């Protein structure tokens, strides 16, 4: 019986494969040393990436009362609190811009970054059962988590636009740089997220550390205060090694026309972010082989 089936299959397949070997051959063997990023494979799985993003967006606010309003509530009310305590009570300088919009312009990209980082760092652990049962490029999970935050970003950004209208601030021509600045935030969030998600797979300590890391990072980023508090150019550049400094200052510069053009700072931020992304991606890929066993 089986023999018959075999020969049928062979004849059925033979014409298409006689010339070209069309069946993919996968070689499974232990990987050693630093492995490649396999970006081509990730590209082949782009549909899955799209489905992950779509799912993350779709389920994010399921069974919540306020739904997508949370995308606005989070940065908006942080801005309100900041405006009261830092703006009014502490009289924090704000580069000559009304404090609420000064802080909100920073909180919009920051919230995107922080949520992306938090979501990405949990992505391995929260998909443990899937990782143990089916193969796909694991990189798709943290990437989807970060990219899914773009919708929230867009909603919060609309509010920012509205506030600018209300305050009568017209954006400068530099607004054209915004997509690149957003890309910088994506790269930073993903870079850090890759590191933390890979670590989190093996050590759940990371889950506890992430809220701290985000909190510290927030204070190390000029959100509640202007980076102009640091004056020495060299120091400012060093400060820019925190990629979110570049993002936040860039947003203010492009949208609100803050005079302190963040030139060298952005360069430092971009280099740091790219470094973070590549190191994170390689670390992730290196640890990837152990995920199914440890997660």
């Amino acid at each position, binding site marked *: 019986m089986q023999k018959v089936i*075999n020969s049928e299959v062979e004849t059925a397949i033979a014409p298409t494969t006689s010339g070209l070997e069309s*069946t993919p051959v996968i*070689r*499974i063997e232990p990987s050693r040393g630093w492995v490649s990023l396999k970006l081509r494979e990730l590209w082949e799985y782009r549909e899955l990436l799209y489905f992950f993003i779509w799912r993350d967006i779709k389920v994010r606010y399921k069974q919540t009362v306020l739904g997508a309003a949370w995308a606005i509530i989070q940065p908006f009310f942080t801005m309100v609190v900041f405006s009261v305590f830092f703006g009014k009570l502490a009289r924090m300088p704000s580069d000559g811009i009304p404090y609420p919009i000064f802080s909100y312009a920073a909180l919009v990209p920051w919230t995107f970054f922080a949520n992306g980082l938090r979501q990405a760092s949990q992505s391995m652990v929260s998909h443990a059962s899937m990782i143990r*049962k*089916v193969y*796909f490029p694991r990189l798709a999970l943290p990437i989807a988590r970060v990219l899914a935050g773009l919708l929230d970003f867009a909603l919060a950004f609309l509010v920012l636009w509205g506030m600018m209208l209300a305050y009568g601030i017209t954006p400068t021509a530099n607004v054209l740089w915004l997509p690149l600045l957003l890309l910088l935030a994506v790269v930073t969030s993903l870079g850090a997220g890759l590191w933390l998600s890979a*670590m989190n797979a093996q050590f759940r300590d990371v889950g506890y550390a992430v809220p701290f890391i985000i909190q510290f990072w927030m204070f190390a980023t000029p959100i509640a205060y202007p980076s102009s508090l640091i004056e020495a150019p060299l120091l400012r550049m060093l400060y820019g090694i925190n990629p979110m400094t570049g993002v936040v200052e860039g947003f203010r510069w492009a949208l609100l026309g803050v005079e302190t053009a963040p030139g060298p700072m952005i360069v430092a931020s971009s280099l740091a972010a790219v470094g973070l992304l590549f190191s994170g991606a390689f670390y992730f890929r290196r640890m990837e082989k152990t995920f199914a066993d440890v997660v």
Partner: protein
Amino acid sequence: MSDIAIRLENISKQYRIGKRQKKYRTLRDVLTEAAVAPLRRAGELLSGRTVEATGLNETIWALKDVSFEVKRGEVVGVIGRNGAGKSTLLKILARITEPTSGYAEVHGRVGSLLEVGTGFHRELTGRENIYLSGAILGMKQTEIDRKFDEIVEFSGVEKFIDTPVKHYSSGMYLRLAFAVAAHLEPEILLVDEVLAVGDDRFQKKCLNKMEDIGQQGRTVIFVSHNMPAITRLCERAILLEEGQVIADGPAHQVVETYLTLDTSTTAMREWPDPETAPGGEVARLRAVRVCAEDGRVVESVDIHEPFKVEMEYDVLKSGYVLLPHFYFWNQAGICIFGTLDIDPEWKGKPRPAGRYISSVHIPGNFLSDGMIFVNAALITQGPTILQFWERSAVAFQVVESFSDDGARGDFAGQIGGVVRPLLEWDTEFKSDVGGREWLKR
């Protein structure tokens, strides 16, 4: 083109199974370890070394030098006890985990079905989950579009297709999940025990679908504890024992080898450790035996002789009405019959906690010859809850000795059938008219 679908060459996989504990640990040990371990771990983490390399942990070889080839279109069953390495083997072929050494070549697109409902999200609707799960299992969107109606029809949940699956009954959920998986069309399909879930009707549907897949000439690797399913679906089987291939050949032979590996998998099976015995808080199965009428455990029974199958179990909580039952399966994967405990002494009565033995008496001249597998199960009633369901708990051989008073009379050929009852026959001589009429022609 080569007709090899899968080739494994000395595949080994090592797992660590946690640190060996020293017998006595002083507080100082604990404190120094607590202080040093995080630093050491952090060092390991950053260097990307995996922890097993440091020699701190006990390791176990889940697979050791496994080599075999699977031809295109072959349906191969992989059997073995729990922990024999079956699932690890599938995970390596599915690229979920890497081998520690050795290599494998897989020719063709691989679909793995190691779990029903992989990637399902409770908050999403049936429709959305079909797309999501399909994509995770490796289907393209156009492929899912094309098969969508077929999937929905197969699952039988048309009416609820736009309802979030969290509102589904577990049966509906399983059917939908399996429907997606069943419509995967890879060249090579890896299947692990998915049939261990769901009710019998659903299982049958799954088995039929698997049979279809096999007949379409696709390569299938099928891991299961369900021996009748293995012999029914696979022409070849591989037996793993402690990570090594110990038998490879025609499925029914390998299944027999497996069942005779040791006594615990044949006519008698015991669970000495109450913690790991099948069951839950109410009842746990402790032993199943195939016995002759005098109580001896027997590996094979004569087709003409009565015998009994008994289950020994602990009832841990008093006050439940228990319903022990057995299902008898033959080697072709056909359920011969199921039978429930109808002993009037306990029928409908709550039982006190304690140890019980329930036996069913099988008459002689009833079963057909061949290998018989027995599933032992127990449910509690009101509400009906399955306490345990031990598939192929025991197996035994029904052998046919020739005797004058048997069901086959003097016939020596194959009879077949799932039962071989000794029925009463009457043959009457009416008259010699019939014979005379033929003679006239």
